[in-house]
């Protein structure tokens, strides 16, 4: 019961999607679309599981005064403020994203700056990663260094000022050698994915069942 039925469900679902892909006639034509909607519904329910795990772990941290419980209070406060603001927007403007609703204020002045700033850390990390990784230790590393430098120079106006050919070299590197390797990797991933999918459908990949 605990292993046979899940394997059967995976097998049936996988085979149905593959077969339905080739049959336009009802009900197969929109089968894939419908199953993806089912997927979103199951995901919606499971989110309750996730949020419960987050809330419970933080509440225990607060109740047991474990180290860092103060920040758990901040987390829970943020959670409740945003939830209340969202529900208020939903009730008042019948949509959480109503431009002048309370939620949009939380979104514009809290979520957006946090999101944009975390994203912008990449400018720093890309610089330190480049400094460290681009050392001509081996042939491969020096190639990494060479093409990265050429493309970087080619993309900034200063590059074009130094020599008119630089932007053209950058375009060529991106369109030919880079495309060739990317295509090979894509084909490899496609074959690996198909084999892995088959192993899952045939029940050879047990991971969470075993």
């Amino acid at each position, binding site marked *: 019961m*605990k292993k046979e039925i*899940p394997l059967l*469900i*995976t097998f049936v*679902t*996988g085979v149905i*999607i593959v077969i339905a*892909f080739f049959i336009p006639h009802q009900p197969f034509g929109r089968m*894939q679309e419908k*199953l993806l*909607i*089912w997927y979103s*519904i*199951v995901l919606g*329910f*499971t*989110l309750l*599981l996730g949020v419960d795990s987050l809330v419970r772990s933080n509440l225990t941290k607060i109740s047991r005064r474990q180290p860092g419980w103060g920040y758990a209070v*901040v*987390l829970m406060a*943020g*959670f*409740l403020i*945003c939830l209340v603001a*969202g529900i208020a927007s939903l009730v008042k403007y019948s949509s*959480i994203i109503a431009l002048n609703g309370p939620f949009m*204020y939380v979104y*514009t*002045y809290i*979520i*957006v*700056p*946090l999101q*944009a*700033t975390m994203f*912008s850390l*990449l*400018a720093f990390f*890309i610089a330190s990663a480049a400094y460290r990784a681009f050392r001509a230790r081996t042939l*491969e*590393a020096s*190639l*990494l260094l060479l093409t990265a430098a050429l493309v*970087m120079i080619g993309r*900034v106006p200063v590059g074009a000022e130094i020599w008119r050919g630089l932007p053209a070299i950058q375009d060529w590197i991106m369109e030919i*050698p*880079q*495309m060739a*390797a990317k*295509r090979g990797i*894509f*084909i490899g*991933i496609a*074959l690996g*994915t198909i084999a*892995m*999918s088959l192993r*899952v*459908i045939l029940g050879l990949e047990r991971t*969470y069942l075993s």
Partner: protein
Amino acid sequence: MTHIIGTWIAAGLTLAIFSFLYRDNPAYKFAEHLYVGVSAAFAVLYTWAFDIWPMLVDPIFRSRGVTSPVDRWILLIPAIFGLLMLARWFPKAAWLSRWSISLTVGIAAGLGIIGQIQGILLPQIQGTLLPLTTINNIILVVGVITTLIYFYFSAAHKGLIRVSARIGVVFIMASFGASFGYTVMARISLLIGRLNFLINDWLHLLR
């Protein structure tokens, strides 16, 4: 007025996140925990408003966007699988959630096969069938072949395979270096965006 308060809050959070670059500190911990809490609540709101309500509740209770009764009541099946997932709250019944996990894994496997063959394999194969009449075509075909040889698992990298796999690695590394360099500009733009906010929108308030 609310805009000015809002800008101060935004500027404070921006500096708190930037402080992480120096080292972990209370300001970053505050901003991080606030971000996780607020975004988790946003996930709940967004999932309800754009997933569960339009795809499940509306169709079943108000039969909105549903053509036939079959379409309407068949939605009970994913709802049941959703509830099975919640069985994880009761340790003894947690094994029931495997039924829901296996449904989603089945979807992954089905999509894996047809998605890759139609979406990746066919177009990429077509793109590689080129006559060797130009330098670029030669480089493209040689690049794809040697990259594939690098991924060949069933033979040790010896002799001819070792040489072509090495050439494959040359292509792969050149490609990764190029896409690394290509992305630097986009990431710097993000920093420009944030510093602009601090300089023009926030410090502007002080002047």
